[in-house]
């Protein structure tokens, strides 16, 4: 958290944020499913100015072979930012931040995957941030989860992710880049909503115990909203009108 030398008024007198949002309002979020041809599963998200694409390859043979796990699939996640995704050009080689994020994002997604079903195989998740504006790790988890579903990999649940934070002393939802840089705290969370199991939790900044609880609860609410948007996107992509659905009872070869 870098504090600017002059304090920015991130929340105006009406209680609205720099981009006009209320403290508990999510940025405008849109998901698109199955946009890539070669990948086995893919999805794209625009959350505020974030533009992130995720692709899944697998389950497939593990290369190099010696990395394969005998009793389950190896889930590998690569979070990478394009050089043009941020204000100051970022060098293409993976930075330490990207390596850490690759690790925590993979750990946020894996609990949802039935990895036990595919011993010795690999499931590779590739996330490319095309444009970044705060909260990219959360958006990455949400979109990667959809790519896993699109690949037809069996999942316990989708993983929905959202961050809350503290800006000008107030607890807010879904910080954009300015709020993240100039605010006082950032708390990204990821959740499997059906079982209320938290798969990602990080924080940096400063929270009293009370503030932490408040922010945590708000982030969980945000995850719930993201979950609804994820399901909506899947339904829109795959719905078949009921009338047109044939009687599948008889068709299924047992």
């Amino acid at each position, binding site marked *: 958290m870098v504090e600017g030398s002059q304090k920015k008024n991130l929340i105006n007198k009406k209680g609205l944020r720099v981009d006009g949002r209320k403290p508990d309002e999510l940025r405008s979020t849109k998901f698109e499913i199955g946009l890539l041809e070669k990948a086995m599963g893919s999805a794209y998200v625009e959350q505020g100015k974030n533009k992130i694409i995720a692709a899944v390859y697998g389950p497939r043979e593990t290369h190099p072979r010696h990395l394969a796990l005998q009793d389950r699939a190896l889930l590998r996640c690569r979070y990478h930012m394009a050089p043009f995704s941020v204000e100051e050009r970022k060098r293409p080689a993976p930075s330490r931040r990207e390596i850490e994020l690759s690790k925590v994002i993979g750990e946020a997604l894996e609990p949802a995957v039935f990895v036990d079903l595919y011993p010795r195989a690999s499931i590779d998740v590739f996330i490319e941030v095309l444009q970044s504006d705060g909260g990219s790790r959360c958006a990455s988890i949400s979109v990667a989860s959809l790519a896993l579903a699109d690949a037809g990999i069996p999942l316990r649940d989708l993983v929905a992710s959202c961050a809350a934070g503290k800006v000008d002393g107030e607890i807010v939802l879904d910080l954009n880049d300015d709020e993240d840089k100039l605010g006082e705290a950032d708390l990204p969370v990821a959740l499997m909503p059906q079982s209320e199991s938290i798969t990602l939790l990080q924080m940096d900044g400063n929270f009293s115990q009370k503030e932490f609880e408040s922010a945590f609860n708000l982030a969980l609410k945000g995850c719930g909203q993201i979950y609804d948007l994820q399901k909506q996107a899947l339904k829109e992509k795959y719905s078949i009108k009921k009338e047109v659905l044939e009687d599948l009872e008889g068709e*299924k070869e047992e």
Partner: protein
Amino acid sequence: MPLTVEDRQLVTPGDLLAEVDYKAGENTYSENDKIYASKIGIVGSRRNIVHVIALRGFYTPQVGDIVIGKVVDINLGGWVLDINSPYQAILFVSEVFERSFNPRKDELSEVFNIGDMILAKVSGFDRTRDPALTLRGRGLGKITHGRIIEMTSAKIPRLIGKKGSMIDMVKKGTGCQIAVGQNGRVLVRGKREEDVAFTIKIIRKVEEEAHTSGLTNRISELIKKEKM
């Protein structure tokens, strides 16, 4: 007790499908006596088993499946094939050479070489090793002519139809020989190029309209029209 979702509804992973009373069928899982979907698909139930017909998926080998594989490697044990699944398949030397024999590598490549397409059957598969193939069966072996197309393995059952009804109708109507691999690969052979092309057109149509009603009739109409 009924399902918690409507029958034939589109469900997504994590959706609650049923509580108590039901058993977990295909593409579902159970936790604490509740059954959830594990894939995107259409929910259905038969007797007390709730299942999801997946709209997205990949081929997982099962013993007894007919598959069409492509030779990608040869080693002293036999041939390694890509069968469009998370695992590569092995065709052991003993499947082809009856007697106990120690062939050198270049002799093996004379039988099947890298790039060859093979019609085979899955003879063994478990968690500890890659699926094994056999050629013992009618029509199994190297594919020497015809066209092979690839489609979503999830839709293969629809192409076959109840007790083979759909595929038989297509075979009869087009006069072509069709070998359907469970792994999403289909071999089409016919005397005339137009027949083969038409058959492929039908297969693509089935793939696209797999879950819609009236498909059987539409395919039947298509065949009738072509004959005229």
